[in-house]
């Protein structure tokens, strides 16, 4: 049984409310971090609820022992959303929050894309399409050792263009890796435009199911829905894919569902406007 299912509903409600509060401040911290150091703001904001729900309410992990052998693993296959992951890890005290200001700077432990030198990072990424393969290796190692840890891979929807993704989707189903969960941040955008205009992904859920996966579609900004889907995945006999529909640039109205925030530094006026909006939310 998962932790979440064991919990009383009331307690869980309380935790969800607290997390939503926390997410508000993390969103603000991502804006500040990217404003200082640069990076992919839009896709960091689209997957924040997913990463935060995993780390605060779902995964077994220990910030004081990042290499704890029995921890659940998280792989940010869409490595360009690193600012979101760094902000969550800092909130959990994997490293001091002040370090966020060093993102992408020379000599920083916070590289432009996830790197093992950062405490709490389980796998390197930055080149798209590789995270699920790494996740298979980790899930397989758990099976070989009789360990109960679970492996979560967060991928972008644009990333699904990569051939390796489908090699690994096929392989995970073949191996029946039920300790492996894939979450796709379905924000509908990739660098050059709308995902469906660059290379059609629809029907994403149908494709995953036809490959032999359990698959759900959820609202990727709802902590409750994310948690519910992750809890379902605990009881699946197949690898589970969660297609999380999200909004690129979530929380900053003039970036929402546009590609402007793909990799951009806001000017002073935009930054102030964004701050105002995030404080309101």
């Amino acid at each position, binding site marked *: 049984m998962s932790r979440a299912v064991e919990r009383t509903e009331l307690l869980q409600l309380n935790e969800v409310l607290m997390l939503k509060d926390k997410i508000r401040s993390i969103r603000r911290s991502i804006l500040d971090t990217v404003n200082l150091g640069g990076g992919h703001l839009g896709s960091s904001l689209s997957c924040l609820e997913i990463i935060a729900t995993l780390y605060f309410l779902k995964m077994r992990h220990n910030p004081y022992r990042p290499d704890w*052998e029995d921890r659940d693993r998280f792989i940010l296959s869409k490595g360009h959303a690193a600012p979101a992951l760094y902000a969550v890890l800092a909130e959990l005290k994997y490293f001091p929050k002040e370090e966020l200001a060093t993102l992408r700077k020379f000599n920083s432990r916070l590289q432009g894309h996830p*790197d*093992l030198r950062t405490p709490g990072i*389980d*796998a*390197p*990424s*930055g*080149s798209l399409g*590789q995270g*699920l*393969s*790494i*996740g*298979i*290796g*980790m*899930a*397989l*190692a*758990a099976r*070989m*050792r009789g360990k109960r840890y679970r492996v979560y891979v967060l991928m972008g929807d644009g990333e699904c263009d990569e*051939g*390796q993704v489908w*090699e*690994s989707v*096929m*392989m995970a189903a*073949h191996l029946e890796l039920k300790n492996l969960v894939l979450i796709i941040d379905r924000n509908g955008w990739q660098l050059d435009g709308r995902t469906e205009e660059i290379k059609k992904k629809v029907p994403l859920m149908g494709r995953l199911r036809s490959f032999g996966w359990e698959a759900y579609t959820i609202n990727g900004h709802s902590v409750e829905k994310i948690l519910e889907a992750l809890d379902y995945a605990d009881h699946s006999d197949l690898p589970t894919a969660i297609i999380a529909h999200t909004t690129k640039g979530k929380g900053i109205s003039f970036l929402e569902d546009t590609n402007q925030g793909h990799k951009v530094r806001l000017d002073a006026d935009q930054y102030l406007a964004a701050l105002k909006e995030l404080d309101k939310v």
Partner: protein
Amino acid sequence: MRIIFGDTLVRLGGRNNDIVVLTADVAKPTNTNKFAETYPDRFLNVGISEQDMVGIAAGLALSGKVPVVAVFASFLMRAWEQIRNTVARADLNVKMVGTHAGLTSADDGSSHQALEDVAVMRVIPRMTVVVPGDRQEIAEATEAIVEHRGPAYLRLGRDEEPKLFEGENVFKLGRAVTVRDGYDVAVFSNGAVTSEVLAAASRSKVSTKVVHVPTVKPLDRDAIVAAARATGVVVCAEEHSVIGGLGGAIAEVLSTEYPVYIRRIGTEDVFGESGSHSDLLRKHGLTADHIGAVLEEVQRRRAHCS
């Protein structure tokens, strides 16, 4: 070469429970099927998907396992970006074995031959690159790269190899070995080519020092400089392009540490083609006869220079 590799893997698997062997639908040709039969729960055939295979190996290594991936060298290069970006950047303990390297896929033609693999693996930071020369050395090199902590590439060629070494303890990671002494010309070679070089040297009037360099990276700089110093002219021979392989590595070292005339033997910036292995070796000058002719040419050049 592959038979001894497969046998060695089985032996190492018995000693180390963490070794996991992966292949991409070539268990039989790579001889990893023996490991599969002996340790089925530590063997994974991923099907025809080299990129996924390297990624899975990375995940296993991140979980404390010692993955050994074995596929045709030419197809392992399909996962070069995965090797660079995921395995090497994170310094993961993944062992990559490229079989059928050089021209040894002979009649299969150039799609299956690998004449660029040493160059493109060598350029990756943290990578160890090993090209052993006979069965004993393959056994010891396999063991050495598995025990070494970090990413490594082992390059294997044809099935039957001439015997190069007597006895045991012939291989040490990072060490070049003088297998024949001489004072006119120094030849650096690796893989099965060393046997051809030795045959050429024993027949030649040119006094030839033969230095076998199974570890292309890290290179045994001291041994290479010492041999160049002793002879003053150098020949490099390998079943690989003359660009970027052992010859390239040696030219890089000697150009700064002891500049001498260097002649490289290998494929001259061309692809292979179908044919018997011996036909192809002859075409690309990797036979004892041609190497012998090069020794004389180089010796004449040396006489002019001095």
